[in-house]
C-alpha cells in the first residue's frame, strides 16, 4: 500500500499536480482530490459495493500519513473520507450510503462538520441551532461557525436540536442531519483567519428545509453519534505532521554536515516525531480492533499538537530566518508554520478539553 501511494504522489508532484505545504487539512485542490479519489485512495476501508476497497484501517493510516508527509492538498475530501463516510456507514440508511459514498470515493462530494456555533465552542452540548418538525422533514434556524472549507463543500453534517434543552441531561434532544449547502435557506460567509486566509466559514440557516431522508441515524441520538465520530478525529497522522515541511526544510537548510547544536535539534525533533508516530499507529490499531481508545487518542492529540507547535519555534532558533540564508522555501514554511500554530491546540478539542479527558481516563474526574 505504501509503495502504491508513494508512487502516485511522486508522479503527481513531478507532473506539477500540487505544491507541498503544511496543515494539509486546510489546503485544498479540488482537482487533486478528484485524481486522489480516482486513484482509489478515498474510502479505502469502505465496502466494495459502494466503490471502496474493503481494506483495513491501518491501510488507511498509511495512505493518509503518506499524503500528509508529502504536503499534498487533501483538504477538500478530508472530512468526508475521515468521518462523514464512516458515520454514514455506521448510522446512515442504505439509501444514504448508496447516494453519497460512491461520490465521496470518486472525489466529487465534499463534506464539512457542522458542530460549533457562535456560543458553542468547546462546550458542544450547548448547540442551539433548532430543527422543528414540518411536513416531510425538518426546518433549521440558527448559525454554525468555524466550519472548515464550507465554501467548497457540497454537504455539511449538522448537529442540531430536535427538542428543547433538558437541563437534567443536556446531551438529549440532539440529532444529525445532512445539509445540502447549495440548497436555498443557507448563506455561507467567510471568516478570515489571522493570516488573512479564507479557511473557516459561518453559515446562517433561515427556515432551511431538510427532508426526512437526510436525517442521519436516530432522532435524539446525535450526541452519541458525534462522540463516536470524534474518536477518529483525534489521533490520526494529521495531529503530528501539521508542520512537517518546516522540519524537512530545516534539514535541507542545515545540510549534510550539521554542527553539534544543529544535529541535536533535528535529532530531537525527529525522535519526537518517530515516537508520536508509534503512539498514533498504536491507537489506529486499537480503532481497527473495534476498541474506543478515548484517552489514548486524546494523549496523541495533546502531545502531537504541542510537538507540531514546537517545530517552528526550534527551527527559528537554529536557523534564524532573518539571517537570509537564501533558502526561500525554508522561510516560507517557517512563516506558515508560525501562523498556523495557534490553531493546532484549539481545533478538534482544545488542549484544556483534551487534558480534561485524559484526567478522566486517569480517574481524577
Amino acid at each position, binding site marked *: 500500500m505504501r509503495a502504491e501511494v508513494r508512487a502516485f504522489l511522486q508522479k503527481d508532484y513531478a507532473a506539477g499536480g500540487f505544491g507541498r505545504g503544511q496543515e494539509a487539512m486546510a489546503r485544498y485542490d479540488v482537482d487533486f482530490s478528484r485524481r486522489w479519489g480516482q486513484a482509489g485512495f478515498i474510502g479505502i476501508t469502505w465496502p466494495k459495493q459502494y466503490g471502496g476497497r474493503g481494506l483495513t484501517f491501518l491501510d488507511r493510516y498509511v495512505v493518509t*500519513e503518506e499524503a500528509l*508527509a*508529502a504536503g499534498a492538498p487533501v483538504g477538500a475530501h478530508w472530512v468526508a473520507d475521515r468521518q462523514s463516510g464512516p458515520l454514514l456507514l455506521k448510522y446512515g440508511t442504505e439509501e444514504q450510503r448508496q447516494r453519497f459514498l460512491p461520490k465521496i470515493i470518486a472525489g466529487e462530494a465534499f463534506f464539512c462538520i457542522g458542530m460549533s456555533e457562535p456560543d458553542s465552542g468547546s462546550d458542544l452540548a450547548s448547540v442551539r441551532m433548532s430543527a422543528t418538525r414540518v411536513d416531510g422533514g425538518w426546518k433549521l434556524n440558527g448559525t454554525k461557525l468555524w466550519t472548515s472549507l464550507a465554501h467548497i463543500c457540497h454537504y455539511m453534517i449538522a448537529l442540531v436540536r430536535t427538542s428543547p434543552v433538558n437541563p437534567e441531561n443536556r446531551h438529549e434532544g440532539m440529532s444529525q442531519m445532512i445539509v445540502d449547502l447549495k440548497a436555498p435557506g443557507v448563506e455561507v460567509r467567510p471568516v478570515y483567519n489571522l493570516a488573512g486566509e479564507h479557511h473557516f466559514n459561518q453559515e446562517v440557516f433561515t427556515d432551511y428545509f431538510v427532508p426526512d431522508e437526510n436525517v442521519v441515524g436516530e432522532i435524539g441520538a446525535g450526541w452519541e453519534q458525534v462522540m463516536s465520530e470524534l474518536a477518529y478525529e483525534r489521533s490520526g497522522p494529521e495531529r503530528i505532521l501539521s508542520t*512537517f515541511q518546516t*522540519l*524537512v*526544510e530545516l*534539514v*535541507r537548510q*542545515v*545540510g*549534510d*554536515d*550539521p554542527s*553539534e547544536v*544543529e*544535529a*541535536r*535539534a*533535528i*535529532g*530531537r525533533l*525527529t*525522535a*519526537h*516525531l*518517530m*515516537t*508520536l*508516530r*508509534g*503512539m498514533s499507529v*498504536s491507537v489506529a490499531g486499537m480503532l481497527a480492533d473495534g476498541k474506543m481508545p478515548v484517552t*489514548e487518542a486524546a*494523549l496523541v492529540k*495533546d*502531545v502531537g499538537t*504541542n510537538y507540531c507547535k514546537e517545530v517552528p519555534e526550534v527551527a527559528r532558533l537554529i536557523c534564524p530566518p532573518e539571517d537570509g540564508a537564501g533558502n526561500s522555501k525554508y522561510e516560507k514554511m517557517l512563516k506558515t508554520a508560525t501562523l498556523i500554530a495557534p490553531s493546532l491546540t484549539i481545533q478538534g478539542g482544545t488542549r*484544556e478539553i*483534551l*487534558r*480534561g479527558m*485524559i*484526567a478522566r*481516563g*486517569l*480517574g*481524577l*474526574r
Partner: protein
Amino acid sequence: MNEMRTLILDTAERIFRDICDQALVDKAEKGEWPAGLWQTLEESGLTQASVPEERGGAGGTIGDGLYFLKTSSRYVAPLPLAETLIAGVLLAEAGADVPAGPLTIAPVRKGEVIEFSDGKLSGTASRVPFAHGASAIIVATSAGLAIVDPESVKIDRDKSMAGEPRDTVIFDGASATIVGSVSPDRIWELGALVRSVQMAGALEGILAMSVQYVQDRKQFGRTLSKFQAVQQSLAAMAGQVAAASSAADTAIEATEAGDTGVAIAVAKARVGEAAGIAAELAHQAHGAIGFTHEYALHQFTRRLWAWRDEFGGEPYWQAEIGRQVARAGADNLWKFASRT
C-alpha cells in the same frame, strides 16, 4: 503477549509487590544487599530470563528480559538486574556460559579502554554499576569479552545520586580469559536500551503514585484531584509517560526483531526528556511531602535523574540521530522517520 512472557511478568509483579517495598529500597541505598529479593528472583529464573537454557538461563527472548526490567523499575528494585541482563546477552552472543549471581559490565563510559595482553588486564573503568558484590564483571576489553573475578581487581566504592553503587574498578594486573568477541559500542548501546526501559517503568510508577496522592490528599475541603489545575498538570505528565513508554517499547520490539536501527537512540533521547519533565510535575503534584525522605517518591525521581545521564544523555543521542538524518537528506526524512 505470549504465554511465557505473561508468566514472567505475572511472577515478577507478584514478587516485587510482596518483597520490594520502600524500606527495602532504603536499606539497599544505605549499603545493605537485598539478598532475599535477589534470591527469590534468581530462583524463579527471572534474573537471566533472556539467556538460553543451555547457557544457564530461563530460555526467554531478550524482549522477555527487557519487559521484566520495565516491571522491576515500577518498583525501583535496587538490584543490578539491567547489568545482569546485559552481561547475559553479551556472554550468550559470545557463546559462553553465564555465571550465577548478580553480574555487571565494564567499561560503561565512552573513551575508557581496558587493555588485554599476555593474559593480563590494564586500565580503569569508572562509574561501574554494582561492581562490589557482583559475582563477575563482564568486560569488553581491547581483545574481546572477558569474565573477571571482582576479587582480582581493586574497587573504589561510590554511589549515584540514586544511591545505586557506581564504582571505580582498577583492572591493572588482573588475569582474565577471553571468552569471545564483542564490538566496542555494544555495551554502550545495550546500556542506553536498558536505561530507557528502566526509566519508562519508573515513569509509570511516578504517574501511578501521583494519581493516587492527589485522590487522597485534601485541601480547601476537597481532594486535590478536583482542582482543574492539578488535573491538567497530571494529564500533561501522562502524555510524557505515554510517549516514554511507547518509545521504550518500540526499542524493545526492534531489539527483539534484531534490527534496532535508530530505535534505541530515539528511546534514550525521548525517554530521558520525559523523565525530567514528568519528575518535575510529580514533585509539584506531591507538594512538600514529596520532598521528604519519609515519602517514597524520591526513590523514583532520583533514579530518573541519574539514569537519564548514563550511557549518553539526550544531547548525545539527539546528535546521533540528527547526524543520520542530515546524512540521509531532507528528501529522505519521511522515509527515515516512517521506517517500520
